[in-house]
């Protein structure tokens, strides 16, 4: 049994924990070839907040980077399987994964 979801509907969506706490925004989705198919492997998450969205563009400009505006913008990569897409407009972490993600994030000093 299978169903389809659309990438363009996912991009920009806020990802939450099962309890509803917002964690980040879907920035991109990564896939790799496996035989004849391309399997969806990872999700790239960016920070929340208006500053993060503005700085995502500013981060590209070395001039602005030089004055420190880009420091606020980071992304992290999580495995696709950690997310539950039963409702594509409301992606959320599966049980237990959110804590693991947080711990991993803290370890990385983010």
């Amino acid at each position: 049994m299978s169903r389809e979801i659309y990438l363009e509907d996912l991009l920009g969506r806020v990802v939450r924990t099962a309890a509803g706490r917002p964690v980040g925004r879907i920035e991109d989705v990564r896939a790799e070839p496996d035989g004849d198919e391309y399997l969806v492997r990872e999700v790239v998450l960016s920070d929340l907040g208006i500053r993060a969205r503005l700085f995502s563009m500013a981060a590209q400009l070395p001039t602005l980077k030089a004055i420190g505006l880009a420091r606020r913008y980071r992304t992290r990569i999580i495995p696709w399987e950690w997310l539950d897409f039963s409702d594509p407009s409301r992606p959320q972490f599966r049980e237990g994964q959110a804590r693991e993600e947080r711990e991993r994030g803290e370890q990385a000093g983010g």
Partner: protein
Amino acid sequence: MSKLLKIALGIFTSIGGFLEVGAIATAAEAGASFRFQLIWAVVLGTICVIFLVEMSGRLAALSHHTIKDAMRERFGPRVFMLTLVSDVLVNVLVLAAEIGGMSLALQLVTGIGFRWWALPTGILTWLLLWKGSFGLIENGVSLLGMVALAFLVGAWKLHPDVHEVLAGLALTLPAERPVHYWFTAVSILGAVISPYLFYFYSSGAIEDHWGVDEIGVNRAVATVGMSFGCVLCIAVMIVAALVLQPAGIQPDRFEQLGLLLTGPLGRWGFYLFSATLLVSCLGAALELSLATAYSFAQGLGWNWGESVHPRDAARFSLTYTIMIAVATLLIVLGLDPLKLTLFSMALTSLTLPVVTFPFLVLMNDRDYCGELGNHWIGNTAVIVISLLASLIALVAIPLQLMGG
């Protein structure tokens, strides 16, 4: 085509694209009202546009994308649409100004009102695109645009005080009419920094299959071409300053512009001025129509190209057709071409950051420009000048509308 020939052709096309009704009208206005005080605006604008034109060529050569193409890919459809809507609104006004310029040139020579000439000149512009090969037309019209050299001759013959000219390079505050001064400054900036110019340039670079090898040529063409255009523009200002200003003529009546070259060059000057106006506006009108159609095609994935038959690029051809039709209508309806010119140039300045900011992001993106992305000098120059132009426009336009 040998490299030298390529460079020469590129330079001529750049000069031809530089001087059109916007540059002529704003420079003449500046010269008649403020003598040489606004030369700095032409130079500042030229510096910015040299950077932008060079960048657009480099982007095409390195990423094999045009600016608009890359805009949608990198920023998505929403940002792309925003820039597209802004472009279309400004371009249709500027295109109307160019058609108005051609019509005024013909009115000067024949005495028949410009509104009658709008339809024929609009149809001529359209026909050249519909039936012709763009490359041939562009180069042909640009070469004809060399008639603008008459302004150089005229300026030289009037023996301007060199010290006064050089003094104009520095930003000085006006003794009177500050709103008019800044509005004219902003119009000059908008006339010189025309986004359609470098959008068109990047499309041409893709058509000519530029690669890394063309980076040097690109730099040469951008710098020399734009600089030469800058000198011509300053020449117009000098002529206006020495011919109109002493006579106290404010060129708000268009016929007065016709007098510009009769001072130094007599009867010939009158015809040379009209020819310059006609040809340079035609070149600009062609570029504007194409640039807009390219923007649609490159953002939406249509077929586009220099010598593509209307049959094979139907939506592309329809786009420039509609642009020309709407612009022509504006002049037929009687909008004053001179006022329209000054206003549309100021509007261009206002919307500059919308155009340049995403472009700069592209130019610093490794995926597009690899190791040959922008230097901090280019980034800073463009950011500062665009913001400056926009802020001044934000203040000056409403004030001018209220006062004028």
